């Protein structure tokens, strides 16, 4: 009674075909990743050495290391995070937990989405106008980081808000019914359960911040500096801009050096990501529902 009819067989064949096609598409998807990483490691790895990582460039940047740029990128990311994470998380908590559902809230949400769509070069010009000129920070780490922070705020806000909204409403109601205030509920029940999602947002932000070139070009990143920055009001070199410079702006560049810079940049991002992912897994292991 279970013989396959012609229709059954046809369905089976179609199903196999689609499975193959969908799997194939997915395979094509990972191809660029493998190619990029492969090329970078293949060509860049020989350049990497202790000296490359921890000394400054010499001979018009055609030799020596990338330490000022590496340090600069780390500084830029850290200062940007310091500005955008508290701001973004606070805004997201307000929007998700407190804001009434009215036209004003919807307008804010729309603004955030639009902010995410603004091209980075426009952010750069905004940064020049606002931070470099108006606030008189000059071209500095602070100005560049704040520009990056503004640019990545939507990522933090959206990720945080989504993870807050993923916490079941029943948890909040149970807590409110006990006589907890909104803040007590947020503090004791909502936030602890949203932390993993918030970290995901921060991870995304780190990756984007570290790699951006346009927003920092005019606001704080320098072509070449003989000295390391002494404060957030100094300019700095940065990996992304350095990569652009050594790839296109300097004659007689050894072929492998740009690959080395790119490899360091991508490793830095991957390293920060893995740290955050590890932290996230640790927190998730501690709390589950």
């Amino acid at each position, binding site marked *: 009674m279970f013989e396959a009819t012609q229709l059954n067989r046809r369905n089976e064949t179609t199903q196999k075909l689609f499975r193959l096609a969908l799997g194939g598409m997915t395979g094509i998807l990972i191809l660029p990743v493998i190619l990029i990483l492969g090329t970078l490691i293949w060509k860049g790895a020989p350049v990497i050495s202790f000296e490359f990582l921890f000394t400054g460039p010499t001979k018009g940047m055609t030799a020596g290391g990338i330490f000022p740029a590496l340090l600069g990128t780390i500084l830029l990311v850290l200062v940007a995070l310091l500005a955008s994470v508290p701001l973004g998380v606070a805004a997201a908590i307000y929007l998700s937990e407190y804001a009434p559902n009215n036209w004003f809230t919807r307008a804010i949400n729309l603004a955030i989405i639009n902010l995410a769509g603004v091209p980075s070069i426009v952010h750069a010009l905004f940064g020049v106008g606002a931070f470099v000129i108006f606030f008189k920070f000059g071209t500095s780490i602070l100005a560049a980081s704040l520009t990056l922070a503004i640019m990545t705020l939507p990522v933090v806000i959206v990720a945080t808000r989504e993870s807050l909204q993923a916490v079941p409403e029943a*948890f909040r109601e*149970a807590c409110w*019914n*006990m006589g*907890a205030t909104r803040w*007590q509920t947020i503090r004791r029940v909502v936030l602890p359960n949203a932390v993993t999602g918030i970290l995901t947002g921060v991870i995304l932000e780190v990756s984007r911040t570290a790699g951006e070139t346009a927003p920092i070009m005019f606001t704080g990143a320098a072509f070449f500096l003989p000295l390391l920055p002494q404060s957030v009001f100094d300019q700095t070199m940065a990996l992304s801009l350095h990569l652009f410079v050594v790839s296109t702006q300097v004659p007689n560049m050894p072929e492998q050096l740009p690959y080395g810079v790119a490899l360091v940049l991508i490793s830095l991002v991957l390293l920060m990501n893995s740290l955050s992912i590890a932290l996230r897994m640790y927190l998730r292991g501690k*709390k589950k*529902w």
Partner: protein
Amino acid sequence: MVIAPPQGVTTTERPVKLGVAGLRIRYGEQTALEGVTLDVYEHEIFGVIGPANAGKTSFLKAINRMDMFNTDMHVEGQITFNGLDTRKVRNVYGLRRRIGVVFPLPVGLPLSVYDNVALSPRLRGEKNRAELDVIVERCLRRAALWDEVKDRLDTLGSMLSGGQQQRLTIARALSQDPELLMLDEFSIAVDPVTTMRIEDVLKELRQEVTIILVTNLVQQARRLADRTAFFLDGRCVEVGVTEDLFTGEVQDQRTRDYVDGRFG
């Protein structure tokens, strides 16, 4: 046990815990419940029965002033708790603390068993560990759960079985030291044996607290409630001594039809 006075007789000797007069609840333009006027006496189990969509849950939410958290929900009329108008209470958080709520589906907060029960005392500012230990044990015992969880107070509340979780939420509600306990169809997600155990717990609790029992099981109301209100399609059709709804005089024939299982 005190027998509630018959319908229509004014009561002077029984103190009113909760007074409801001309209550109307609407969500936007949609009326969920209207025309509710009733009193809940101290230390009684007050049953609320009725089919789905009768407005039973909204009734509980209004008592607890949950409309504060829902801009869509509007409550008209008067609800008094210990004679005080709940709309005029300055400290609504204090009001809610005196009212424990148990939901249809157990809401095991993603905390350990211990922290679930200790949450409410902690919200009140209790930090002393020894004091918390005492409260947690007392509440878990009263909810008939202590023996089953005393060796694993650190496990997540959500890892307990459904019936245990429901008793955990009762323990959590009791940790508020409530004067009024409201249960919303607590037996929906609970097996019959656990239901019976919880019912026994409620009978014991009647000595100390006033209980409003919203239930979709008319027999449960009959077993437990001193008096019962019948809600239908957003209206309070009948309030009376529970047994009267089943065997005595009813004001509205639909009440008898419902308790006899002819609809709903």
